[in-house]
């Protein structure tokens, strides 16, 4: 899932940044969504306990926490395995990342339950494992794409390995790395809905409840909110990813 930053014209106004979060906020206003899905629920007015905004916050918190941990683990990992003389570690990492990409998400989440029990813990673990995939693979790809002659010039100017990493390699790998963070975060919004089956709460809860109660309205509420959350995060992160790199002072 090596995603490449989408080439966007900077002149284009990123409408998504305004539209999606605004729609999300509108849907979270008390009573708005239940009224909208009323035709699907046989006239019954849905009430939510805990309230929808709280489910959304739980969901968002789970995703952002996972992204934070993924950054803390993934970036150093990508740096460590791309140092010269560690090709074997890089191969191993790439193979594991490939496995993570291939093994179904739901299987990863379910397999975490025996180890961690029910609740948010296995979901968080699954989100971290799954979220690491694009961050590590993009981080490795970004760091490897730094051209040899630039490193040669940096070495020739007397930069230490740490200075080369900090001043040359990381800034140049940053766009690709951030694209990976964006992919990881947005996909995890979807993955986290499945976490409701593991008792993690969040926006998957109304979906699962609706499916088991055969109530399409309930499903729609969760699905719409999850989709809007994913689109909002995608647009917001797109703002960071596509912005021109600020010159390092």
């Amino acid at each position: 899932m090596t995603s490449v930053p989408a080439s966007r014209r900077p002149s284009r106004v990123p409408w998504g940044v305004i539209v999606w979060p605004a729609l999300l906020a509108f849907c979270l206003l008390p009573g708005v969504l239940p009224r909208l899905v009323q035709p699907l629920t046989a006239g019954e007015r849905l009430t939510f306990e805990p309230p929808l905004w709280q489910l959304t916050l739980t969901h968002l918190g789970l995703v952002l926490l996972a992204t934070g941990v993924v950054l803390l683990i993934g970036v150093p990992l990508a740096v460590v395995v791309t140092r010269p003389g560690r090709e074997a570690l890089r191969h191993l990492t790439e193979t594991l990342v490939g496995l993570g990409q291939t093994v179904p998400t739901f299987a990863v989440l379910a397999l975490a339950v025996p180890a961690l029990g029910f609740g948010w813990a296995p979901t968080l673990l699954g989100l971290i494992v799954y979220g690491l995939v694009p961050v590590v693979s993009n981080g490795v790809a970004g760091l490897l794409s730094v051209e040899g002659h630039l490193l040669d010039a940096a070495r020739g100017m007397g930069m230490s390995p740490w200075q080369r990493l900090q001043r040359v390699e990381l800034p140049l790998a940053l766009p690709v790395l951030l694209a990976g963070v964006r992919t990881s975060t947005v996909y995890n919004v979807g993955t986290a809905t499945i976490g409701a089956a593991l008792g993690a709460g969040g926006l998957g809860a109304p979906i699962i409840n609706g499916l088991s109660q055969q109530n399409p309205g309930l499903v729609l509420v969760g699905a719409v909110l999850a989709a809007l959350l994913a689109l909002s995060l995608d647009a917001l992160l797109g703002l960071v990813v596509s912005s021109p790199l600020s010159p390092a002072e």
Partner: protein
Amino acid sequence: MSVSGQPGAGVRGAYAPWSVPGGTGTVLVLATLPMLAGTLLPWVLLRPNRLAPGDSLRLPPALVGAGLLLAALPLLTARLFPRLTGLAASLAVVAGFWALGTQTQAAVAGQAPFARASAASGVWLFWLGAGIATYGAGLLTRSRPERWLAWAWGPPVAALFLSGHLNAWSVLIEGRSEGPRWVQELGQHLRLVGEGLGLALLIGVPLAVWASGRERAAGTVLGAANAVQTLPSLALLGLLIAPLSALANAFPALRALGISGIGVAPALTALTLYALLPILRNGVVALRGVPSGTLDAARGMGMTPAQLFWRVRLPLALPVWLSGVRQAAVLLVGVAAVAALIGAGGLGTYIFKGLQSAATDLILLGAVPAALLALGLDAALRGLERLLGRHFGRGP
């Protein structure tokens, strides 16, 4: 530029006289640690029945000693006889299965028939380490005929399964009792994936060909496919319920055809939509990526548009396109597992059942085959890509 002054791979010389990727030693150390830890941790979890909490049992001292030795063996072999590292790693894998068999047998011996002995954390860690060791051995010997030794564990492990040595393992007990139903769900899973992929190909291939020639259509198609991908699979399944059940309510004829809000119909629709993205994206990108010089040359030779497509554009685009089909197939194995929630059946049924009743063995019965299915499908389609890539003279 003359030869650059990069120091050679670190492991060279210390382990093997041939060229080995740097850091292979570290990989083998990373393999040893989980194996050591696994040997010392609980090996078997014994429960009076399949749902009750149970006791952790450790390996007997003699086996702990043997386990520690086996854990260190790949690393030692790599130092002393690097060519045989694959054999040492395979030995560790087989030993892990063998010890699981003996320990589960010993645990359930004399217990009530409902007692279940399952693999505890130690086994999983030991397998993890042994797996990394076979990987490290593969790297160490990858330019040599001995690399096949890293796969030597295959036949003995198969023999352990077939001989009934592992029959006391709770997952296999569960599997035997599910027996034909499990095979049926596996078949249903494969059918969901196959049909979803087939429908997506039927729609996606012509659509990609049509869109690849049109700048704006290509943008729209890709944008739409991307938007579908942003939707969580669970949300998409849920969203399809409403329109499909509305359709079924409005046209009873459709309901007679089996279309309703839940079941196979929304699952197949969702699977098809999901598979469309990689197929469309890679198809459009690959078809548009054919160098214009090549197309010019072909036109210059007097090819008709049809000949141009069948003889030049399609063969050149095929490897990239196929990798999109592979991504779609792998993705579908996962989405199909989730689709069990809306009554579509498949291996996901066991995962949800296991989650609902907190039965780990049922979860494993669904999740492990689903994972293996995805990996197998990935490997098979990769092989196909390589074959076709070679056939058309373009490596993947």
